[in-house]
């Protein structure tokens, strides 16, 4: 119970800290979103029209009251789930915009993360099982090289090869202009085609961390006394590797995975930016660039809450998977 209260307390405290940080960031910045919008509209080589800046400033509205009352209003609005209106997409609400971007990111990153995890864990387990064999060397050395390729660069190379030179896949976007988003097959196949390259660039580097982590954990668990005893018991090598090695070695990875899923957005900014993918990562980048504070704040909050929830889930999951933790929690 105490444990649970502590977790809940931490959750709320972090949430509060994130919200406050969100509140402060725009107020610490020089510059004015209205000017940012106008200079973006007119481009760097055109003079800015002060009247336009003024009108836009009016449109966005300026918060009034001193910092404390502003803070109070802001907190109240957040509690109501009211994140305001996006500057970039005025007069559409931030909530509307996030709802539009969310499915893309969740599907793209969710699928690739799950695949990465499965592939990585399997390869890592295989490497540990065949430790010091050629398979092991190929997997660890290969992954340590591929894993260090910057994936934004990989993405560019993929575009260059598969989209530009071979013209097999579209070079960017979530779907073509010809198919209207909806529950129809044309749209889905189109969206799938568009997701191949971004997914690939995530999948090439994605499993590496899991491979190394799994291999090292499993090498360790296979060296433990219980694994030795399992050998003495005459269990087959495979069975030992599974129930005594992998089963235990995968535990830290599972928690890591839950947290990685929570950080889903943080990691996709680059890929979404390069592939012009209509998800939240790109929206985040745009919001930062445009000083779209309401959108930025909400996205930030969204990501933080995601990570927090993921952490909670990871903890719970760990409790379910690892009986050693279960008792301590129960108390």
């Amino acid at each position: 119970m105490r444990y649970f209260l502590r977790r809940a307390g931490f959750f709320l405290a972090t949430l509060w800290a994130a919200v406050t940080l969100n509140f402060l960031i725009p107020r610490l910045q020089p510059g004015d979103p209205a000017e940012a919008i106008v200079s973006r509209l007119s481009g760097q080589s055109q003079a800015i029209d002060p009247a336009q800046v003024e009108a836009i400033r009016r449109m966005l509205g300026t918060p009034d009251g001193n910092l404390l009352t502003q803070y109070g209003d802001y907190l109240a609005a957040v509690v109501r789930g009211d994140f305001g209106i996006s500057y970039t997409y005025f007069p559409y609400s931030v909530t509307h915009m996030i709802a539009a971007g969310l499915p893309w990111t969740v599907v793209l990153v969710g699928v690739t993360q799950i695949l990465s995890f499965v592939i990585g864990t399997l390869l890592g387990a295989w490497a540990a099982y065949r430790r010091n064999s050629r398979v092991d060397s190929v997997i660890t050395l290969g992954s340590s090289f591929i894993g260090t390729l910057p994936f934004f660069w990989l993405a560019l190379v993929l575009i260059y090869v598969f989209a530009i030179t071979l013209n097999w896949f579209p070079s960017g976007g979530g779907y073509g202009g010809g198919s209207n988003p909806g529950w129809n097959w044309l749209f889905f196949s189109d969206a799938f085609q568009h997701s191949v390259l971004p997914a690939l660039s995530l999948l090439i580097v994605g499993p590496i961390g899991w491979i190394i982590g799994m291999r090292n954990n499993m090498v360790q668990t296979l060296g433990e006394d219980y694994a030795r005893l399992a050998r003495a018991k005459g269990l087959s090598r495979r069975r030992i590797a599974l129930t005594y090695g992998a089963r235990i070695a995968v535990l830290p990875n599972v928690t890591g995975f839950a947290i990685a899923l929570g950080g889903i957005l943080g990691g996709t900014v680059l890929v979404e930016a390069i592939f012009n993918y209509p998800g939240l990562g790109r929206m985040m980048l745009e919001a930062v660039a445009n000083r779209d504070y309401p959108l930025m704040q909400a996205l930030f909050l969204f990501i933080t809450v995601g990570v927090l929830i993921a952490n909670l889930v990871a903890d719970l999951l760990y409790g379910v998977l690892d009986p050693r933790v279960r008792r301590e929690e129960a108390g």
Partner: protein
Amino acid sequence: MSASLPVEPAGGTEHAEVAAVEASRATRLPGWFVILWRNRKCRIGLLMLLGFVVVAVLAPLIAPHDPRENSFTPSIGPGGGNWLGTTAQGEDVFSQLVYGARTSLVVGLAAGTLSTVIGLAVGLTAGYLRGTVDEVLSFFINLALVVPVLPLMITLAAYAPVKGLWLIIFVISVTGWAYGARLKRSQIITLRTRDYITAAKFAGDSTARIIAREILPNMTSLVVVGFMGACLGAIGGEAGLAFLGLGDPTTVSWGTMLNQANTGGAMLTGQWAWLIAPGLAFAGLMTALTLINFGVDALSNPHLRED
């Protein structure tokens, strides 16, 4: 054996360590180095890293031109006077590549050190002092862990008043210290209950001295592992930020090269060398560090040592 011998990591590593220390006595090399050097992967990594360091240090000698000199025909492919072609601004790609190694190494070293130092300071204080101090610091550590790093980095880099390499280093460090701090905190919690720490208290040592002389030396391998990880992260972070155009445009780095190759139409004009070279150089450096990390991992995890 003199007292200046390199310190030994904690616990489990004891025995192979002995041998390495003994071997090092003969060769006059530090013990950790011997352990690293014996690992084949790690040896390759060390040699690769050495290569990059040499290139970075001798950049003015190796690079045929100043990386910013823009007197060449713009946008030409490899060949002739420009081995890897030129940029859209007429700069020599190869010279930029050579100087880019400097940036990456400086960022890796500086941000790695800075975030290690922050992590160490916070982790040590939290872990050793416990109580309220620990609660507060742990909260910050956990907070920093759940705050999404890349977006935060982007925001900080985008809104910082002046762009520059040091800003990037700063941003990477302040967003990247938490993981190391948490690891260090938990290690110190196990270390601080060791009998020899209690013994030091009985010997009348002050807290500061206990931390510096009794605990820190036992954390070397963790600190080294953390430092390597931080270097890797920092180099990647710099490249990513620079690629997004959030870096310092006046610095020549592999990230800015990729950014400029991307925006400067390298794909359009078929200048593959401009695009491929920085990526490969980057991967090379990262691989070197990763390979070294295999050895460093082995320092702290004896199970990994027999490879």
